[in-house]
């Protein structure tokens, strides 16, 4: 079979007019996903030169929900965008050195852009469904490639700026920027194709966003979570997976709070004897799902006061689980001191379920779910 040439693609739908319009919304999605991704990456860092805010408590829920939603919306947009410019893949390179060099640079930047965009969307979608068929570190790679996406997108916009401005400034049926061969009317009009794209994008969002938007739960048939779970909240890592059940259910469980050589040891009944507070706080996971719960337990600051820990100190939180990247987490001083941060013992007027971190778990406002450590064994205030 002969390789196609650019001129073989004659539909007038494959035009700069359509590409620029779809590309504009794709760019908006990329920008939102990038900014919310940076927020999530920063929130998961141990060091916060600028303290990550503890308010609003639902902040991370919104930013991470937006991150996954805009990434999802980008899938139909990217596919239609690539369809409209597909003939360019087969364009014959110019012969003269100068134009050839420009062409190589332009095509190179587009190659990088397409490879990294597809990578981000595919790896992000797989990750949200907890499917990790790769050898690389997801967080590092997804973060690094996000910068390459944005960088190559900015280069792409710089190269195409006159066409983008011209196409967006003119009517969608304007032919100024069309390829000379692209004259055959399509099955749809250009407006029709654009409307179909917006519909497909909206459908993609509706079918998935229920994992984080409660009123869409019934509509989102492709949501990774229905929102159901023990005590009305889904779980990410089960007690079985963390292999904590014997230690967590043991009568000899004790929480150790330490600061500067001082230690206080508390059983679960000791914890229940302390003043109990109640807070409505969300669990918002990096995978984009979230759910709000009514947690009860001891204010973390009250526990730190037992060892006379000064305000503003970071706290190292250690779980009963023996392995896993989040066995030990770092709670920054502003989170440790926030009145809403609890060592939760109960959820929704019941004893905390084992899968939610029984005998005690950390729950703090505006914090990524992976850092809301379950089965807490030790709180060590930094010296």
């Amino acid at each position: 079979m002969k390789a196609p040439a650019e001129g073989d693609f004659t539909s007038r739908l494959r035009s700069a007019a359509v590409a620029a319009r779809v590309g504009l919304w794709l760019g908006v999605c990329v920008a939102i996903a990038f900014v919310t991704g940076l927020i999530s990456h920063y929130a998961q860092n141990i060091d916060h030169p600028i303290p990550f805010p503890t308010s609003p408590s639902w902040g991370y829920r919104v930013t991470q929900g937006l991150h996954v939603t805009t990434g999802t919306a980008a899938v139909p947009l990217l596919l239609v965008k690539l369809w409209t410019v597909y003939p360019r893949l087969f364009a014959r390179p110019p012969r003269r050195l100068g134009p050839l060099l420009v062409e190589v640079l332009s095509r190179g930047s587009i190659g990088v852009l397409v490879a990294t965009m597809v990578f981000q969307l595919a790896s992000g979608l797989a990750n949200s469904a907890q499917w990790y068929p790769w050898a690389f570190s997801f967080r590092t790679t997804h973060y690094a490639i996000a910068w390459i996406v944005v960088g190559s997108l900015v280069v792409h916009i710089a190269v195409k700026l006159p066409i983008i401005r011209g196409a967006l400034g003119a009517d969608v049926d304007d032919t100024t920027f069309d390829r000379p061969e692209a004259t055959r009317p399509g099955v749809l009009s250009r407006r029709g194709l654009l409307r179909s794209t917006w519909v497909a994008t909206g459908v993609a969002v509706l079918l998935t966003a229920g994992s984080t938007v409660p009123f869409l739960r019934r509509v989102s048939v492709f949501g990774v979570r229905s929102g159901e779970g023990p005590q009305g909240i889904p779980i990410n890592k089960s007690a079985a997976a963390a292999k904590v059940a014997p230690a967590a259910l043991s009568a000899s469980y004790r929480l150790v709070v330490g600061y500067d050589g001082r230690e206080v040891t508390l059983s679960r009944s000791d914890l229940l004897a302390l003043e109990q507070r109640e807070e409505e706080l969300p669990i918002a996971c990096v995978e984009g799902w979230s759910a709000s719960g009514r947690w009860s337990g001891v204010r973390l600051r009250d526990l730190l006061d037992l060892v006379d820990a000064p305000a503003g100190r970071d706290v190292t939180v250690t779980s009963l689980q023996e392995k896993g990247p989040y066995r030990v987490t770092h709670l920054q001083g502003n989170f440790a001191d926030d009145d809403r941060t609890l060592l939760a013992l109960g959820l929704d007027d019941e004893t905390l379920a084992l899968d939610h971190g029984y005998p005690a778990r950390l729950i703090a406002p505006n914090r990524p779910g992976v850092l809301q450590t379950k089965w807490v064994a030790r709180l060590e205030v930094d010296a």
Partner: protein
Amino acid sequence: MIRVRAGLGALGVLVGGYGAWVLLTRQDQDQLIGAATWLAAGVVLHDFVLAPLVLLLLALGARVLPRQVRAPAVVGLVVLGTATLLAVPVLGRFGERPDNATLLDRDYTAGWLVVAGLTLVGVTVGTWISRSRHRTTDDLDGGERGPGAGGR
């Protein structure tokens, strides 16, 4: 304009360069090979599998579908095709874990069938509307001539 473009281009190279540096310096070689494989596979799968497949479908549609069905069918293809691609991780249930019943806790196949059914209803209604509207209009020919169609 040329200054703005040059500035944007330089900014893009800088931002992308930072990403490349982070990518290359924070993981070992096996991980980098894994990432490079995924980067290349995405382009190859789109450009040489998915895009030709869509061309083939469009060419096929242009042959077998009556005129008034074509436009609604293309809309249906855009909506259902992208939704299906999006749903691959959940339809395959690759991340399923026996110890966690709250993960992937829907019947995704049934969900897909509902979406496909609704799309079909939409295409049927669309066809019916375009039939009653364009009964006398000489409709425009459609379909993309695929690769190998040759010349103009």
